[in-house]
């Protein structure tokens, strides 16, 4: 039994934590929050590029470091802890992983080295309106060479150079790579509850696109990409939830009311104990997801669903109850609680909301335990 990260992976984690604590304190996040014209931290993004993190799980032959998915999980957790305001997840968990899974060798040669060195930034466009994404909810259309339609919201859509799009093609769905600098593409910044990450509506008017993988297999491939991305997102959520828990504990020990620290009251203690339990459940499920991801295990679908459900619940609970523990202070702009509250919501819905994953999980359990 070795259900833990290796010493090398823990070393990577410690180094990543040191680097991010120094380079991405909440002041860096707030620079993005407080400026309507800035949607990510270019300075941090440049540093992350220089560290080589973008190529962590991209094979050496495509310009990456060729480390594994476990190393990428470790970095994801650390980015989550500091609420890094960069398009790392969009470019790596979705775009690069999508290419790795379904790209032709030519496509991998063309795009992966540039994703790895940061000269292009990827994003994923699936949603077109309120409600879960299904084969019939997709109206954005591909005719074999051009895309017409609109995607809203696209996380990091305004700063990405390329998008992976889930589109309608004939009577089915396909995946398409679109160059966002091409003619026929317009981008409009969206106001969202999470302004420390970029969100855009991307509109395509007969814009050029090239198919990724097989025509008609769009939704199936998209689901497979989501299964993998869900686990990486779970690590970001876990990082955020852990940090929110630390903040709540620190404050509960410091803040005095009625002559003693508020953390001496059972209403606060039991709330924080519940938070601890949810975070440990999320951590164990995320580790299992990491194992499934790194070994391409047959258990990947249920491991991904469980990791995502547990991490979404943990970060939601930790972020809202961290605010509650801080009382009135927690509801001020200046205290960081709301940054976690905002990020928790983004990460919980950007790859399908928890209800969608619960249904996926139960379907996987039904298949697995078919009589």
């Amino acid at each position: 039994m070795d259900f833990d990260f290796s010493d090398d992976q823990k070393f990577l984690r410690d180094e990543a934590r040191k680097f991010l604590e120094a380079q991405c304190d909440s002041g860096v996040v707030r620079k993005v929050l407080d400026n309507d014209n800035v949607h990510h931290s270019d300075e941090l993004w440049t540093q992350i590029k220089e560290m080589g993190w973008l190529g962590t799980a991209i094979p050496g032959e495509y310009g990456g470091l060729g480390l594994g998915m476990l190393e990428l999980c470790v970095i994801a957790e650390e980015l989550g802890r500091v609420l890094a305001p960069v398009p790392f997840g969009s470019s790596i968990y979705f775009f690069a992983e999508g290419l790795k899974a379904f790209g032709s060798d030519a496509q991998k040669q063309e795009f992966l080295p540039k994703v790895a060195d940061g000269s292009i930034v990827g994003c994923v466009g699936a949603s077109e309106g309120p409600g879960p994404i299904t084969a019939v909810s997709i109206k954005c259309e591909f005719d074999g060479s051009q895309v017409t339609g609109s995607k809203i919201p696209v996380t990091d859509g305004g700063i990405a150079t390329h998008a992976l799009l889930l589109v309608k093609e004939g009577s089915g769905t396909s995946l398409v790579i679109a160059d966002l600098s091409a003619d026929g593409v317009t981008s409009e910044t969206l106001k969202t509850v999470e302004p420390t990450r970029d969100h855009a509506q991307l509109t395509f008017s007969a814009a050029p696109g090239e198919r990724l993988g097989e025509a008609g297999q769009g939704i199936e491939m998209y689901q497979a990409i989501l299964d993998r991305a869900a686990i990486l997102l779970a690590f970001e959520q876990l990082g955020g939830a852990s940090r929110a828990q630390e903040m709540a504990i620190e404050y509960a020990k410091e803040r005095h009311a009625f002559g003693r620290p508020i953390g001496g009251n059972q209403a606060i203690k039991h709330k924080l104990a519940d938070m601890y339990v949810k975070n440990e459940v999320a951590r164990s499920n995320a580790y299992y997801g990491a194992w499934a991801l790194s070994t391409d295990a047959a258990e990947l679908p249920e491991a991904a669903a469980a990791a995502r459900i547990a991490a979404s619940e943990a970060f939601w609970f930790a972020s809202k109850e961290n605010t509650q523990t801080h009382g009135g202070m927690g509801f001020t702009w200046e205290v960081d609680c709301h940054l976690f509250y905002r990020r928790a919501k983004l990460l919980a819905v950007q790859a399908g909301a928890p209800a969608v994953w619960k249904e996926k999980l139960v379907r996987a359990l039904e298949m697995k335990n078919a009589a």
Partner: protein
Amino acid sequence: MNFEDTPEEAEFRAEARAFLKKHLDPAENDRDARYQPDFIERAKKWQKTKAEGGFAQITWPKQFGGRGGTPIQQVIWNQEESKFNAPTYPFAIGLGMCLPTVIAFGSDEHKKRYVPPALTGEEIWCQLFSEPAAGSDVAGLKTKAVRDGDEWVINGQKVWTTGAHISDYGIVLTRTDPDVPKHKGLTMFIIDMKDPGVEVRPIHQASGGSEFNEVYFTDVRIPDSDRLGEPGQGWKVALVTLMNERLAVGGSAGPDWREIMNYAREAGTMSDAAFRSKLADWYVAAQGYKLTKFRTQTALSKGETPGPESSIGKVITANQMQDICNSAMEMQDHYGLISDCEKAPMEAAFQEGWLWAPGMRIAGGTDEILKNIIAERVLGLPQDVRVDKDKPFSRMG
């Protein structure tokens, strides 16, 4: 990351399996027959076999009849033994809690006299701490021990004593000095449960069964040589016992997500959206706990001290079992009331679990006390207000 044994672990597991296979037939064992006389006999026989084979108390030193093995070997043994429905229940408290206390605080004579017969299953032990007015706040207990020459005279009452009626000995926590604050006036003794002054009465539980007991002491005389630790140091001794409790009391048995999913399929209610959502939550929490134990096992395998994460266990399992049973009964609608195992679905497993669940949420630390422990010992939050902390026990209402 992997879930495989190291070569040494695999070798030990194979040895354990071979031993279990040779001596036990899972089909022969019925977990529910717990306190039937023939069950006790089978349990004693199995304990003796285990001890002779070197599998009783694997982490104990060889001088006490243990194997001198590692914690990971104990985990592996427990995993394998549980697959055989082995009748271990009567010894869990004695070997898990009482004897470690005797080993830590007893004299050489105690260890020589009590450890071997406990290990070979000849003698059963119970733990006498809780009282009617001292449950979560067990240091508030009232059972008195008064010194009389070389002896102590015990009077009072204990409650919720598991297995008292089948026990030969017990460790009993008593108040020997009421004029100091409550934690400072306690003393621990070894007590002979066959003493004529010890009366055991089964408790008729809310669930209908009688697994626990009340124990009354009337002028029970205990030699001073059977004292564990110094007079007034009983709380320190009790903490060692309770620390072992967390290792001895495992996850709660009862219906889990698999059972309710199987039932829902049988009953044709699998398509209910609210049920599907809850099923996902149960799976995620149960899987979370199972995998957390794997993290603990990993630390043990590497020879490291496990983190505090396994403390989440009982808070998750007892509540979840109650919730699952309740949902299954509501799925059965009016018929869900029926607890006759001939008539109720799944042989009334959900009804039985539902009746048992309130006890699970209290035994071995209530949900609230367990959350306090997590908050105080794991998260480092301040202790609750204890208004009686520094006042003599005799001056508290």
